[in-house]
């Protein structure tokens, strides 16, 4: 009875929130969900359409909005609208633990040694390396910054700074700027003193910070002169360069992570899912994708197939030398554990002047 009440009330909530989901879920075509927008358009050209043509598989696309809501709805309603989804490591690990994603049979994909070690996990096949960097507008800046520490140098760069609104990324940046080695960041953050230290370091720049909600805002603000320096996704900065904006980035202290393909547990087209992921993990296709979007390949042979001048602006190789990997088990454990508590603290901190 309790279960029935739960189901009924869940139906109300989900129907109200998402519109009525098609009842004929198992009759749908093979469905891939990714981040939408121009990013998914590039994926369509390089991966989806060629896969559909070579394999003769009819496919549908959907957009994953990030976060946990869509997987929660799948768990609660048993409706599985996607077969394959691309997502960040924190949701991947949580979903793998909670049984939302299939534990992969890697023999059906590629030899695990062909990929970056961090791209191989129980439930996910890494497909891109993305990163956040410090960016600036080279047309208007006096002296170009060179390191993460410069972001905290308010004498040389007294202008506004753009940062993402939320504790993730910022606490890490703060500790690195405060002299913590990238390898030790999560060990320090795991102590209450470490978190206090990160907030204290952020206090130094807080009066100058304009917080962004969406990744698109950072390059817009830099181009419009709203901010002098900004934390930004490297791919967004490269796209702005393509549009003729003279935005530049520095790689010191970059935080990088991996997005992976995962197959949803209970999805009807799991074989097609494996076929698609194998198809998309080809180094040549990954290299082709880096031309459309400035994210690094995960296949070891991928970066060698990219022209050198393009490779220079990708989160790969030497660019990551002083960077922090934000997709490690330590990082994920920390953020899944402390996300809510730190977000509450963040929302309180950020509103105090």
């Amino acid at each position, binding site marked *: 009875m*309790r279960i029935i*009440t*739960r189901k*009924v*009330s*869940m139906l*109300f*909530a989900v129907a*109200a929130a998402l519109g009525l989901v098609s009842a004929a879920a198992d009759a749908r075509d093979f469905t891939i969900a990714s981040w939408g927008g121009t990013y998914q358009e590039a994926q369509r050209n390089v991966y989806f359409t060629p896969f559909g043509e070579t394999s003769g598989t009819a496919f549908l696309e959907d957009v994953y*909005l*990030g*976060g*946990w*809501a869509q*997987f*929660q709805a799948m768990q609660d309603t048993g409706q599985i609208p996607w077969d394959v989804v691309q997502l960040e490591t924190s949701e991947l690990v*949580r979903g*793998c*633990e*909670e*049984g939302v994603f299939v534990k992969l049979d890697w023999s059906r994909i590629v030899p695990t040694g062909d990929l970056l070690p961090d791209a191989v996990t129980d439930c996910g096949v890494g497909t891109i390396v993305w990163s956040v960097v410090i960016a600036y507008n080279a047309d208007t800046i006096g002296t170009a910054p060179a390191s993460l520490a410069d972001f905290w140098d308010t004498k040389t760069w007294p202008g506004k700074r753009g940062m993402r*609104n939320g504790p993730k990324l910022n606490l890490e940046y703060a500790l690195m700027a405060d002299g913590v080695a990238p390898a030790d960041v999560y060990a320090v953050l795991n102590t209450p003193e470490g978190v206090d230290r990160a907030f204290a370091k952020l206090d130094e720049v807080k009066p100058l910070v*304009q*917080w962004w*909600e969406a990744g698109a805002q950072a390059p817009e603000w830099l181009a*419009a*002169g*709203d901010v002098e320096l900004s934390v930004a996704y490297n791919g967004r900065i490269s796209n702005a360069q393509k549009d003729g904006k003279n935005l530049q980035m520095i790689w010191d202290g970059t935080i990088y992570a991996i997005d992976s393909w995962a197959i949803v547990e209970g999805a009807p087209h799991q074989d097609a899912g494996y076929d698609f992921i194998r198809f998309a993990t080809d180094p040549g296709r990954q290299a082709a994708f880096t031309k459309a979007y400035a994210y690094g390949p995960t296949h070891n042979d991928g970066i060698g197939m990219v022209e050198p001048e393009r490779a220079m602006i990708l989160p790969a190789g030497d660019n990551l030398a002083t960077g922090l990997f934000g997709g490690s088990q330590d990082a994920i*454990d920390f953020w*899944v*554990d*402390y*996300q*809510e*508590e730190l*977000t*509450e*603290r963040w*929302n*309180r901190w*950020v*509103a*105090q*002047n």
Partner: protein
Amino acid sequence: MTAPAGSNLEVKLRRAQRRRSFTSFLLVAPLLLFILVVFAGPILSLLYFSIDDPKLAEVMPRTAKIVTAWDGAELPGEDAYAAVVEEIRTGYANRTVAAAAMRLNYEISGFRSMVMRTGRKIRRITGPPYRDALIGLDERWGDITYWRAIKASAGPYTTRYLLAAVDLERRWDGSVAKAPPERTIYVEYLQRTFWISFWVLACCILIGYPMAYLIATSGRRTSRILLALVLLPFWTSLLVRTAAWVVLLQNKGIVNDFLLLAGIVDEPLTLIFNRTGVYIAMVHILLPFLVLPLYAVMRNVPPDQLRAAASLGARPVAAFLSVYLPQTLPGLGAGCILVFILSLGFYITPALIGGASDQMLSYLIAEFATRTGNWGMASAIAILLLLSVAALYPVYRGLVRGGTGFRFG
């Protein structure tokens, strides 16, 4: 028993009445059904989600049962440890324990990874005594606060989300206390939500009342044009209007360009990513909701009454205050309530135009519902918002009745 003739008629009459009320019920039935499905249903399920707490008991039923019976004063006995070992073992193998671990993490941050790490190493425990073995894996299993957290999560219902939404928490002994300062944000957000809504309403009245008066009293042509000006933005999507304000208000935006060009300011004003921008955009978006009901009422106020008041010696201000204003109060009341309630629920406009300290309660609801998937907390905050709106109902009643009272009294 045979009924007398008189009451027979009565029965017939009553039957006819019943039939009539049944027909009228049928007529409103679609509406009733609609309200039940799209209004009452979601609100009830919202209430339910904010107290529902089944996760731990689903995954670890034996543990839940034992800790429910446990008084929480001292570490529980060997049977509790045995139950935890067994249920983490099976739950880890079939990937169900993570959901329970997530629930425990709401009580103590870090509990989730503690359970998952225990799961990874659980095969090392081969037999009793389980208590020593579990503490050997992670010494926090010997810390009573973690056991109290399990007790608090044992379900099937919880008050933690509702309490947290008003910055309170329940201690293990059942007493309710204030949450630690770094976690108390919800009341502040509620206050800010009301504060922003209040100022938006004040600006709307200041701009909207004269505007409605102008529309209601000017000639047909002018009033039609003015009305179109009010209605035109009304037909544009909220998101589009918000995005348009971003373009207008930014540092190198049209408003600042104009001000600089006209020499009114020397440096661009900061009109965006702060409270000013939020007020400007929200007032613009909500203004029609005040102007339209006001206009409807003002159109029906006969202009001769003001002239009559003047001829009886009232000064313009006195005539306005004692003759005109009271008659427009019902429209003003309805408009105020519309604007205020709508602005309480604003999300996208403050998110895009406001800074970090200009976000309202809906921002937190979105955060919990989409990012972390904590529907209990999202529902609890939604209820907080709902109750604050419901609290305004008597104010509305008072305003409207006050208005009609003036009109007929």
